[in-house]
């Protein structure tokens, strides 16, 4: 079975663990965690990932900046990115999608939505 590497960029340990817990239900995933945008960028420079889930509101570097940097990198211009945030407004959704995010998940997090997004973006069977 093919192994997919997923990067989770989130400053909240609780949120990170929730996402990891949800994704562990999908077989064939290798999950890497990052504490913030800078940590995420560092990990992206050393490893190749198939999917990125990132929060927006983070210290040092926010998720939108990270998405922008990732999309400008030739090696990562096509990798699926899911943004997670507290904001529910269409304005923020459009801003995130304009920067290159593929999908948008709002808090409070439901694990079913995380699984659906991961399955769809990685083309995994339902």
């Amino acid at each position, binding site marked *: 079975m093919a192994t997919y590497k997923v990067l989770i960029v989130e400053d*909240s*340990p*609780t*949120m990170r*663990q*929730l996402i990891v*817990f*949800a994704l562990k239900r999908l077989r064939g995933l290798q999950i890497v965690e990052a504490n913030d945008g800078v940590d995420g960028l560092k990990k992206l420079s050393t490893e190749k990932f198939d999917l990125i889930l990132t929060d927006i509101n983070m210290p040092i570097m926010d998720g939108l900046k990270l998405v922008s940097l990732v999309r400008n990198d030739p090696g990562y211009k096509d990798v699926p990115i899911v943004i997670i945030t*507290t*904001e*529910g*407004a269409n304005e923020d959704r459009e801003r995130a999608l304009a920067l290159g995010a593929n999908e948008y998940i*709002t*808090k*409070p*997090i*439901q*694990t*079913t939505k995380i699984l659906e997004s991961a399955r769809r973006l990685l083309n995994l069977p339902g």
Partner: protein
Amino acid sequence: MNEDEHRRASSRAEEFLQVFKKGAEFTQELLKENERLRFQVLKLQEERKKGVPVGSDNEIIAKLQKRIEELEKEKAEILDRIKEVEAENLDFANRYVDIENENNMLANLYIASYQLHSTLDFNEVLQIILEIIINLIGGEQFAVMLLDEKTNTLRAVASEGFEKEELPVVSLGDGIIGTMAKTGENYFVDELESYQKDLHSPMVCIPLKIKEHVIGVIVIYSLLEQKSRFAEVDYELFTLLAGHAATAIFSSKLYSESERKLTTIQGFIDLMTK
């Protein structure tokens, strides 16, 4: 002589003609019989190929009708079985959805309780409580208030969406917050949609209890924009917070105090031995 001869010839011709006609008729009859026999042979050959036992037409029809009845009965049984299986399938699908939801709920509860007890640092515990309320419940403006047993007042120790100093100090038994802290009961505003923020009257008030002993409350004043109502899992999380958050806070305070005393004693011992 000639007339007699003619008459004899004519009579003979008639006789001959009759004989010819009879022969023709006989030939036609033979041809028809041959065709009938040929058809019969073909039919028998077909029946032999089909394996149908040779019998009278009535017998064959009776057997076929009986076979049809058997097949109809079998069809009805199969259709009934299909209905049962489909109903069972639907039941399984519904149970699967229920189990999925239950699993998601348990996952949230597990992560929340795991995180709450992952540290003995008081400030970290408070931060984790805030994160649980934001990420798992969808709170926007809320606070954690702890009870000072010496003065019987509740004071905010952590908040989200506004400064904790904005929150008034509440006496035990006063208003919604004080009453819930005294009784240990959860409070939910009746009409979520029409709720107006009032620091003395929260949308939600959850006492933090160790057994029946209240050590504080969580008060919520607003939810995230995209969250319009409480889900079932939210009530489970509130119940969990009431128990686990209370023990986590209590443990971390005890740990902090004991650490402080240990440091004091260690300093004193160092001073004595110098």
